[in-house]
C-alpha cells in the first residue's frame, strides 16, 4: 500500500490505538489535516483555541484516560505555543506525543517563514525528540515515539515532520499497537532489606507521589496490612481516597498538620513514586529528620537526587508494594496510625460567610452534587484549597499542573479531561487570574460539545502572589490586584456557555446544580473573600 506521509501519520495514530487528537491547523500541517478528514470516523479531532490550550488538553486527556495524549500543531509559532504544554507534561511525567509540522527540508536552516528548530527548543523538556528526515523512517519514528512516551517513567516526545515529507509517498505496512519496554523486575535483595526495615519500624509512613497514582490498589493493601499511615504529594492526591482512615492528606508547604507531624515523627519513610520536590521537602536535610528512607521509583535517576535513601528499589510502585505486602508481617494495631488518624480528622472548618462564597464551601458543594466528578484546577490559591479540602475518591480524578505550576493550564485541561471521560462531570476550579490566561478554550468546550463547569474563585486578585507579598514583602501588595473589569457571566455567554454569579456558598450550590442539570458548558463567577488565604 502506497500512502502519503500525511496518510501514514493518521494510519500510525489509529494503529497505535489513538482515537482522539488535539490539533490546530497551519500551513505546514494542512496535508495532515486533509488526511485526518479522511479518517474522521476513527480519529476525533478536537480544535483548541490556541495550541497551548490544546497541548494542556492532550495532557489532561492522558492523565484521565491512562492513554497517550496526542497534540498536532503547525511549524513556527504553532510549535512554540506548545512549549509550556510540553514542559508541563514533562514535569508531571505525563505521556504525550507532540507532532509538529516544519517547513520543507529545502527551506530548513534558512530562517524561512514560520521556521523554528522546535526539537532544539524543546530538548530540555522532552524525554526525546525526533526530526524526521526521510519518509521511510516516518512510521517507525512515530511508533517509537509512543513506546518512549509510555515506557518507564512516562513523558512527552516530540516528532517534527517537514512539510515535504507529508507530501511524498511510500509503502506502508500496518503493525500492532505499541508495547511498552519491559522493566527489569525489582531487586529482590533490596525488597527483602526494605521489608525488614518495615517490620522493625515503630512509626512508618508511606509517602506517595504521582508515580503511585496507578498503584492505588497495591498501596492500599500494603498500608492496610501494615497499618502504615499515608501522606501524599499534590501529584499523589488521588492515590488513596481522602476518607480512608489511614489517609493523612498532602505533605509539604501547603500540607495538612497530620502529615506534617507524621513527617517530623516517623522513624521510617517509604516513598513511592515521588521526587521530593522543593514543595514537598523545602529543606531536604530536615525532611523526616528521624527517619530511615526507602525510596521506590521507576526512574533510577531519582535516587539520591534530592534526598539520600537508605534503601532504593527501582521498579513500578505497584509491583514493589505488592511484593512488600507479601513479605511484611501484618501489624493490626498501630497506636501511631490511630493517633495520626485522630489528628487528620480534627481540622476545623470556618462557618459560611453571608457576604462571600467560601472556597471550602464551594468544594463541598461540588463533591456533594457530583461525587464522580473529575476535578481540574489552574494554579494558585484555588489549587491549594482544592488539594487540601476536596474529598477525592477515585484515582485519576484530579488534574492539576503540579511541577510546572502553569497558570492557564485549567481551561484547556478541562476540555481534554471531558474528551477522555465524556460521561463524567468535569469541573474546573480556577481563579480569576488563571482564567484570564486561557479563557479562550471555553470556545473549544462549547463548539466541541465537551460541556464542563467552570467555578471561578474570584477575588479579583492574584491571590497566591498577594499572599506571598504579605509574607515576604511587608504586605506591599504591588501589581497583584489588577482590578479587571471583566464580566465573567457575560464572557461565558459570549462564548455560547451559560453564566451564573454566586455571592454566597448557598448561591453557588444552586447555580452548580442548575449547571449540572443543563448539561452545557457553564461558568459560575464566585465572589470569594479577597483576604482568604491558603
Amino acid at each position: 500500500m502506497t500512502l502519503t506521509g500525511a496518510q501514514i501519520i493518521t494510519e500510525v495514530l489509529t494503529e497505535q490505538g489513538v482515537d482522539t487528537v488535539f490539533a490546530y491547523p497551519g500551513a505546514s500541517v494542512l496535508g495532515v489535516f486533509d488526511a485526518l478528514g479522511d479518517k474522521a470516523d476513527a480519529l476525533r479531532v478536537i480544535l483548541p483555541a490556541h495550541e497551548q490550550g490544546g497541548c494542556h488538553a492532550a495532557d489532561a486527556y492522558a492523565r484521565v484516560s491512562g492513554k497517550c495524549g496526542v497534540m498536532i500543531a503547525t511549524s513556527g509559532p504553532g510549535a512554540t505555543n506548545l512549549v509550556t504544554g510540553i514542559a508541563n507534561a514533562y514535569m508531571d511525567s505525563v505521556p504525550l506525543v507532540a507532532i509538529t509540522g516544519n517547513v520543507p527540508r529545502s527551506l530548513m536552516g534558512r530562517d524561512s517563514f514560520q521556521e523554528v528548530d522546535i526539537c532544539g527548543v524543546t530538548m530540555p523538556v522532552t524525554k526525546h525528540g525526533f526530526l524526521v528526515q526521510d519518509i521511510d523512517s516516518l512510521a517507525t519514528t512515530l511508533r517509537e515515539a509512543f513506546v518512549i512516551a509510555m515506557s518507564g517513567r512516562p513523558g512527552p516526545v516530540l516528532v517534527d515532520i517537514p512539510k515535504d515529507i507529508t507530501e511524498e509517498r511510500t509503502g506502508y505496512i500496518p503493525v500492532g499497537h505499541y508495547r511498552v519496554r519491559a522493566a527489569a523486575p525489582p531487586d529482590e535483595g533490596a525488597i527483602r532489606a526494605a521489608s525488614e526495615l518495615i517490620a522493625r519500624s515503630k512509626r512508618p509512613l508511606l509517602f506517595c507521589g504521582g508515580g503511585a497514582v496507578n498503584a492505588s490498589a497495591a498501596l492500599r493493601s500494603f498500608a492496610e496490612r501494615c497499618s502504615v499511615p499515608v501522606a501524599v504529594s499534590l501529584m499523589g492526591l488521588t492515590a488513596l481516597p481522602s476518607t480512608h482512615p489511614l489517609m493523612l492528606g498532602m505533605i509539604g508547604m501547603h500540607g495538612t498538620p497530620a502529615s506534617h507531624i507524621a513527617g517530623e515523627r516517623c522513624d521510617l519513610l517509604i516513598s513511592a513514586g515521588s521526587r521530593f520536590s522543593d514543595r514537598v521537602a523545602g529543606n531536604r536535610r530536615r525532611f523526616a529528620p528521624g527517619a530511615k528512607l526507602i525510596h521506590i521509583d521507576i526512574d533510577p535517576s531519582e535516587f539520591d537526587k534530592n534526598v539520600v535513601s537508605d534503601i532504593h528499589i527501582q521498579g513500578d510502585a505497584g509491583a514493589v508494594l505488592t511484593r512488600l505486602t507479601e513479605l511484611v508481617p501484618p501489624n493490626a494495631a498501630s497506636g501511631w496510625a490511630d493517633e495520626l488518624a485522630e489528628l487528620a480528622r480534627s481540622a476545623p472548618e470556618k462557618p459560611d460567610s453571608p457576604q462571600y462564597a467560601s472556597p471550602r464551601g464551594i468544594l463541598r458543594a461540588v463533591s456533594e452534587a457530583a461525587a464522580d466528578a473529575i476535578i481540574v484546577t489552574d494554579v494558585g490559591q484555588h489549587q491549594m484549597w482544592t488539594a487540601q479540602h476536596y474529598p477525592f475518591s477515585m484515582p485519576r480524578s484530579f488534574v492539576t499542573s503540579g511541577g510546572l505550576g502553569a497558570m492557564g493550564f485549567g481551561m484547556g485541561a478541562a476540555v481534554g479531561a471531558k474528551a477522555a471521560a465524556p460521561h463524567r462531570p468535569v469541573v474546573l476550579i480556577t481563579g480569576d487570574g488563571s482564567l484570564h490566561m486561557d479563557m479562550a478554550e471555553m470556545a473549544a468546550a462549547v463548539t466541541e460539545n465537551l460541556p464542563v463547569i467552570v467555578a471561578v474563585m474570584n477575588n479579583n486578585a492574584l491571590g497566591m502572589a498577594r499572599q506571598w507579598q504579605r509574607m515576604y514583602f511587608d504586605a506591599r501588595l504591588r501589581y497583584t490586584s489588577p482590578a479587571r473589569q471583566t464580566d465573567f457571566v457575560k464572557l461565558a455567554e459570549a462564548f455560547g456557555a451559560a453564566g451564573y454569579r454566586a455571592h454566597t456558598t448557598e448561591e453557588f450550590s444552586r447555580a452548580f446544580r442548575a449547571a449540572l442539570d443543563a448539561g452545557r458548558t457553564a461558568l459560575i463567577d464566585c465572589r470569594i473573600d479577597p483576604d482568604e488565604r491558603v
Partner: protein
Amino acid sequence: MKPFIIALLVNNHFGVLTRVTGLFSRRGYNIASLSVGETADPATSRITIETRADEPSVRQIVRQLEKLEDVKTVSLLPGAETVARELLLIKLVVPPARHSALFEALEGFDCRVPYDVEGRLILEFSGSPARCRELLAAVSDYTVLELCRTGTTAVSTLGELTL
C-alpha cells in the same frame, strides 16, 4: 570534588552531542574536557567526558545520561585501571638563543616537532593527563601563541564497553 572520566557509546547522528552536553549544563555539572569520535561501527560514536564532581553527583550524572534515548552505554571508567590520553599541539615562540634550552627541558617527554621555522615552533605531544600537565609546566617559560588540546580519551583495561 574528584576527577572522573565517563565514557559513553551513543547513536551517531546529529543532535546527540547537544543532548549530552545540554544535560550537563542544565543540571549544573561541569565538563572539564570532552572528546568524540566514531567507533569501528559507524552507527555508534564514543564520547569521553572528564568531569570534576563528588561521588553522589557523578552517580547522578551517570543515571541521567542513561536515560537519554540516544545513549546506549554509560561507564564510569575506574581511575587506576584506565589508559587515558590527550593530544596537545602547542605553538611557541622560541628565540634562537633559547632553542637548545627548550629541547633540554623537553627531554624525556617524547614530543614531536612537526614545525620549527624562524623562531616559531609547534610541539606535538600525547600522554596521560598528568604528563600533559608536566609538559605544560616545562614550556611555561616560553611564549605560547596557541594551545590546542583534544580533551582526554580513555579506555579501561578491565572489560570492554558494549552496546
